[in-house]
């Protein structure tokens, strides 16, 4: 029934779902044997190939439809995790895409994400996949941002409930990445995934920029791609934080609200953090109408995202540990004598800036234009790398190449 479409690495009842229209699914019973469907679904649970939710059983014929969407060899390795001795081929990525519920035409997006993950992010040749962040106790999780015409062509949601359910491309493409991590790379919870608590975004987290209601250039254009290019960007996130600023009328008020959230002590395991600010269209219009561009937002946040010495002292984070340079109590056994975060005097108060530079802020516009609600996505480590075509510092990014048509 499922052939040899295994989901792992290459090295190694009731059909009604809700309302009356969903009840029409019973019609499927006349076409296929329900017990066979149930057996296939249970098979994948038994193999440990799911994220806890049922998966779509792959077949060789359906797999061929996915592979036909890209000009890549099925055996090409598109993801490697050398420190775990694991890898993922195009074929295995396609199998996991099927299982996640993707349509075949989504597969080029999946491949582009995997390509973005291989973008060199450091002088030592590190890539996003070679990072231990995928196994971190923090529970770090990938977030991908989709830009360009592909959003409209495939029906990505970018206009409301962008972190929520209801839209197949966002839900299934994000889920594919998690299934690849689980099945191809072996990052199973309690074993190689050491997350202490994780985040709901571990199921799926794929957002698209609301370019139509943004006053600013899209992230892809900022990175040097043309306006007709479709791209995916990739970042490692920790959590999302709502910014409730429904009555803001001045950019400084809004951005101080954001900066106060970015600079919370709880986010700091080391001296610095990074963030993706998902600005709602209403907030973006407020900023742009008073002459603020993306770079102005980044510079303002870098200058104002801070916490006071008193706040860090109350949180026991004014010492710096010996090897990891984590923030620890100043009297901690591992604290370096005489070392502390950098403070500067501002308005008579000692403050610590939590962002190294504007480069550690990524700005996109997404969501509905119905309220002054934005989101700060806390990122792990530096968010950006010099991967932009224009030499700019942007997240790891790759172009989506759709076969037979302009993306």
């Amino acid at each position, binding site marked *: 029934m499922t052939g040899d479409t295994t989901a792992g690495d290459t090295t190694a009842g009731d059909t009604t779902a809700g309302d009356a229209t969903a009840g029409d699914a019973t019609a499927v019973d006349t076409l296929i044997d329900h017990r066979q469907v149930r057996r296939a679904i249970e098979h994948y649970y038994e193999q440990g190939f799911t994220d806890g939710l049922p998966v779509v059983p792959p077949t060789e014929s359906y797999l061929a439809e996915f592979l036909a969407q890209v000009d890549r060899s099925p055996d090409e390795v598109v993801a490697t995790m050398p420190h*775990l*001795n*694991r890898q993922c081929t195009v074929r295995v990525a396609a199998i996991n895409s099927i299982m996640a519920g993707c349509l075949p035409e989504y597969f080029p997006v999946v491949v582009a994400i995997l390509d973005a993950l291989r973008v060199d992010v450091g002088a030592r040749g590190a890539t996003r996949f070679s990072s231990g962040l995928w196994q971190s106790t923090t529970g770090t999780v990938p977030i991908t941002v989709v830009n360009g015409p592909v959003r409209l062509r495939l029906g990505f949601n970018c206009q409301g409930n962008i972190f929520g359910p209801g839209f197949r491309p966002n839900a299934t493409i994000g889920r594919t990445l998690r299934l690849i991590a689980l099945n191809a790379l*072996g990052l199973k919870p309690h*074993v*190689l995934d050491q997350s202490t608590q994780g985040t709901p975004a571990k199921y799926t987290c794929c957002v698209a920029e609301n370019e139509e209601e943004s006053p600013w250039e899209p992230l892809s254009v900022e990175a040097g791609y043309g306006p007709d290019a479709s791209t995916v960007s990739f970042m490692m996130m920790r959590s999302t934080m709502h910014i409730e600023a429904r009555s803001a009328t001045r950019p400084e008020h809004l951005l101080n609200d954001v900066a106060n959230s970015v600079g919370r002590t709880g986010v700091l395991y080391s001296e610095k953090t990074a963030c993706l600010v998902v600005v709602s269209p209403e907030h973006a219009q407020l900023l742009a109408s008073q002459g603020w561009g993306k770079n102005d937002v980044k510079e303002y946040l870098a200058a104002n995202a801070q916490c006071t010495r008193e706040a860090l002292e109350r949180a026991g984070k004014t010492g710096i540990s010996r090897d990891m340079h984590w923030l620890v109590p100043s009297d901690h*056994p591992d604290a370096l004598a005489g070392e502390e975060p950098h403070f500067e005097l501002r308005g008579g108060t000692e403050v610590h800036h939590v962002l190294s530079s504007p480069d550690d802020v990524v700005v996109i516009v997404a969501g509905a234009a119905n309220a002054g609600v934005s989101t700060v996505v806390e990122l792990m480590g530096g968010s950006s790398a010099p991967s932009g075509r224009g030499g700019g510092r942007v997240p790891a990014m790759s172009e989506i190449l759709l076969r037979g048509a302009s993306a």
Partner: protein
Amino acid sequence: MSVCTDKFRMTAEAMARLHGFEGYRFVTVAHPIASLELPELANLAAGALDEVLAILGVTR
């Protein structure tokens, strides 16, 4: 010679397996260590010493 806390035993064993070192010997100590005071850490280290030396092939 690797030392980790007992909460990471399963991960450490899996890592060893992935690299072809099934049964690789390492030492575990009680979790946690990040929030211990120096005397408590010293006690943990002293308690683990015999096992560390045994793995290294040292007899006292």
